[in-house]
């Protein structure tokens, strides 16, 4: 138990006792969990969701779920890993609920195969924001959070191949938009 919780020690001091009290329904301990993990949860949600409002809603829904389910956390992985999976699921649910017009075709129609795309020099932040929601979610979950294509497929209710294809299409776009020079 200590081994897995130690992974969270940089975010949460006395992780073992806080988790034990949170499991007993102590709202102060649950509040400590929130304070320890609100920033990484929000960051993940904001990178996936389109608006700050959606990301804040995901933050709230994630911690509501943490409060309800902390008794079921089995300490088989890190506490952050467990909370992150809840946050990822909530963020993906939010994408589905909002029914964004997110197919590649519609996206292309909206922002276009414009000729100037080939000469664009965006910064990475803007380029990431410009990706279709699902592609952006796959890029973030795979490349930054470290989920496998199998895990992403499971979370999205799709196949691993879907995740792979979204990732490579997203990188093709980013490459085009960023016009990257190699850093020596």
């Amino acid at each position, binding site marked *: 138990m200590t081994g897995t919780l130690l992974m969270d020690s940089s975010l949460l001091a006395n992780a073992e006792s806080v988790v034990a009290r949170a499991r007993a*329904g102590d709202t102060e301990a649950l509040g400590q969990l929130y304070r320890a993990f609100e*920033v990484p949860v929000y*960051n993940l949600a904001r990178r996936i969701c389109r608006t700050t409002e959606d990301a804040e809603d995901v933050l*709230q829904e994630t911690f509501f779920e943490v409060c309800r389910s902390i008794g079921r956390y089995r300490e088989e992985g890190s506490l952050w890993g467990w909370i992150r999976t809840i946050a990822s699921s909530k963020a993906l649910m939010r994408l589905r609920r909002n029914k964004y017009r997110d197919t590649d075709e519609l996206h292309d129609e909206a922002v276009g195969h414009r000729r100037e795309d080939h000469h664009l020099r965006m910064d990475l932040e803007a380029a*990431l924001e410009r990706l279709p929601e699902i592609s952006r979610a796959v890029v973030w979950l795979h490349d930054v959070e470290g989920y496998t294509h199998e895990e992403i497929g499971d979370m999205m209710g799709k196949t691993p191949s879907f995740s*792979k294809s979204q*990732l*490579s299409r997203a990188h093709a776009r980013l490459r085009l938009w960023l016009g990257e020079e190699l850093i020596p």
Partner: protein
Amino acid sequence: MTHLSMETLVSLRERGSEPGQAAAREHLNECDHCQAELQRLHQRVARLKALPTLRPGRDRWPEARARFTSERRRRRTRVVGLTGLAMAASAALAISVGNLSRPADPTPEQLSQAMQRSQVLESALNDYNPGGRVVDGRTARIAGELEDRIARVDRQLEATALQQAADRDLLKLWRERVGLLDALVDVHVTRASNAGL
């Protein structure tokens, strides 16, 4: 010369090997262009990981906590209602077999009164619906502490129901519950009347 597609380059970053990767790696070893593309991909992922951390503009904990405590209250009402029924049945059975002989034991009426008082307070709280109201930080903190203590008493009540504990222990727990609920109603109502709500 056909260069590697982005799909192949991305797959080369994955752990393990997939069909066709040997040929792709062979091409990569001989092609400066594809080596540079793979290097760009590595650098792009490194830059993604290094993007600044975004922080929430608003504190969403009060809302998450209010939703959680409200749900816990609803669940508590249900669980304690069922526990109360089980205990009432058990007390009735005890009377029917004449098993309430010890003078120190409370009467079934005392137990029943405590349960009824608890239900009345619970119902008053539900009607007041504190979860749907705006509360100041101090009230929220005190109410939260009381809710936590009530939840602990409820867990003890559930445990004693399973262990068929002595009636005087049950009465003690029910009275403690009534006291805490009384205090919780006070906290909400006093705050409301002070604020003119």
